[in-house]
């Protein structure tokens, strides 16, 4: 039996997630891994928006913020469990994306970039300024998910790092599976067609505004879930998660690894999340290295790291 590329991608992802802990020198790496997976979830959503549909967003951290603050506020003020708060955040993000998406997605290029950027900044501004609700710039504590306690009652003892590693890993695999399935679905084909040309897609009978809106809403939900998990893992959330720099980080991860491929983007998320952890020694040069990586990859590997490396590898193997 010959495996489809999407199954190979999922299998590679699964093996990497399961095997990686074998090489962890300390428990700290579970946390880094979980952080990578959580970023990768948001990045997978951006692959659908940027890679499939070709629409840029410089404000997706806004949705990350909505997801994160839902988990901080809903359990306290509405009395629902954090699990439902994740769903609530996703619903809020989807609703907001649906409302603002239609007018925003009429725009192209830089205009779309600045409109989404404005949206993200407005969300982060509300989170930072409405201090009586959100705790302001210092952030706010997030209730416990309660999963660790539940596992302990059943007789499993896991550290917080391990729990979040496996939980975020499982959510990432589910998210990647959905995104890969979407690629070959009628919606995915429509998105890729309108990526190539709005007008050509419309002449083929594709409802362009509706499909763009779908991609926008789906990617907003991915971002929101990523924010929820981040908040629940850290037990603390600050308005920075919704800020412009986080949006830039997410887009950079997406494009760095390879915007068209789920696996590539996850690779990008891995590098950019792990880099600051590795570079703690060079803490003061962190920004310089990050900026330099962004510039160099875009110039020399415009397709992204993973596709460019694969192409080189295949080229050599073919000789």
């Amino acid at each position, binding site marked *: 039996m010959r495996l489809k590329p999407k199954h190979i991608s999922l299998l590679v992802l699964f093996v990497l997630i399961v095997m990686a802990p074998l090489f962890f020198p300390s428990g700290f790496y579970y946390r880094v891994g979980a952080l990578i997976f959580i970023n990768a979830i948001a990045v997978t959503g951006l692959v659908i928006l940027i890679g499939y549909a070709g629409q*840029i967003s410089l404000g997706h951290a806004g949705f990350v913020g909505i997801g994160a603050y839902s988990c901080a506020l809903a359990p306290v003020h509405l009395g629902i469990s954090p699990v439902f708060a994740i769903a609530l955040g996703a619903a809020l993000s989807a609703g907001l994306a649906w409302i603002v998406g239609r007018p925003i997605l009429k725009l192209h290029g830089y205009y779309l970039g600045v409109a989404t950027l404005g949206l993200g900044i407005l969300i982060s501004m509300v989170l930072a*300024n409405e201090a009586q609700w959100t705790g302001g710039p210092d952030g706010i504590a997030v209730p416990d998910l309660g999963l660790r306690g539940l596992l302990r009652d059943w007789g499993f003892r896991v550290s917080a790092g391990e729990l979040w590693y496996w939980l975020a890993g499982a959510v990432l695999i589910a998210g990647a599976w959905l995104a890969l399935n979407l690629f070959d679905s009628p919606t995915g084909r429509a998105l890729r067609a309108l990526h190539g040309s709005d007008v050509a897609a419309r002449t083929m009978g594709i409802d362009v505004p509706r499909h763009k809106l779908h991609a926008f809403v789906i990617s907003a939900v991915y971002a929101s879930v990523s924010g929820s998990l981040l908040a629940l893992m850290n037990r603390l959330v600050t308005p920075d998660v919704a800020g412009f720099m986080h949006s*830039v980080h997410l887009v950079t991860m997406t494009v760095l690894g390879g915007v068209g491929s789920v696996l590539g983007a996850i690779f990008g998320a891995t590098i950019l999340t792990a880099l600051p952890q590795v570079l703690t020694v060079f803490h003061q040069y962190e920004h310089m290295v*990050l900026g330099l990586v962004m*510039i160099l990859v*875009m110039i020399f590997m415009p397709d992204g790291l993973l596709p460019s490396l694969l192409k080189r590898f295949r080229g050599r193997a073919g000789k």
Partner: protein
Amino acid sequence: MSDLLQFLFSGLTVGAVYALLALGFTIIFNASDVVNFAQGEFVMLGGMGTVFGIAAGLPVPLAALAAIMGTAFLGVALNKLAIEPARGAPVVSVIIITIGAAIFIQGAASVLFDKQIHRYPGFSGERALHFGGATLLPQSLWVMSGAAMIFVALWVFFTRSLTGKAMLATSNNRLAAALVGINTRYIMTLSFGLSAAIGAFAGVLVTPITMTAYNVGIGLALSGFAAAMLGGLGNPVGALVGGLLLGILEALTAGYISSQYKDAVAFILIILLLFFMPQGLFGSKHAERV
């Protein structure tokens, strides 16, 4: 009434800086179709460079000149090293390159200079002037007249000099400009140098009022970009009007509504404008051909 006058004074001062930032965006966008998110870093470098020039014992005018020249050189280097090699790349890649450049410059500034907040005394002293119950710092007059001077000088440059006309021609149609013998690559380099110098000049003028630090660039770039969008990206007159308008609206919002949400004005305005007038207040209408 004196309140309103006070808000107008501060709005016009900040607005003049936004107008210079927007002008920098406009010049680069016209020459190369690139929106340069590192534009705010030029303003930061103008201010920080002057601070450290003065600290090194240079007289103020010389320190300012050195900061402006150095920043202009950096602008040229940015074009040669990061923008030209990526010619023809998709918009997303170019956005990431210029944001990457902004982050790099910010990181380099924190290493090269420091992470403190700096200022130096105003050029004509610090004693506030009184007009109709409102106060005005002499440095605000420096900022406004400096911005006015730049706009007049550039208007003369674009309409009277051959190089200026070549830049206009390139912004209208690069291919046609190249066909009549204009060196469009030189024009692009020139536009980056000019933009960087204008940004640094704004930084030199405004630092005594707003102070500066290694990380002020991104915020400035976003405001300046908003101002440029407001006026219609690619139009120098739009940059002037958009900058002043944004400055005044921010000051009025801070004064009458909420100082916390003054930064929101730019983005609410942009989103509304993009919905209803996608070309900006002064942008040209483009018919899209397939």
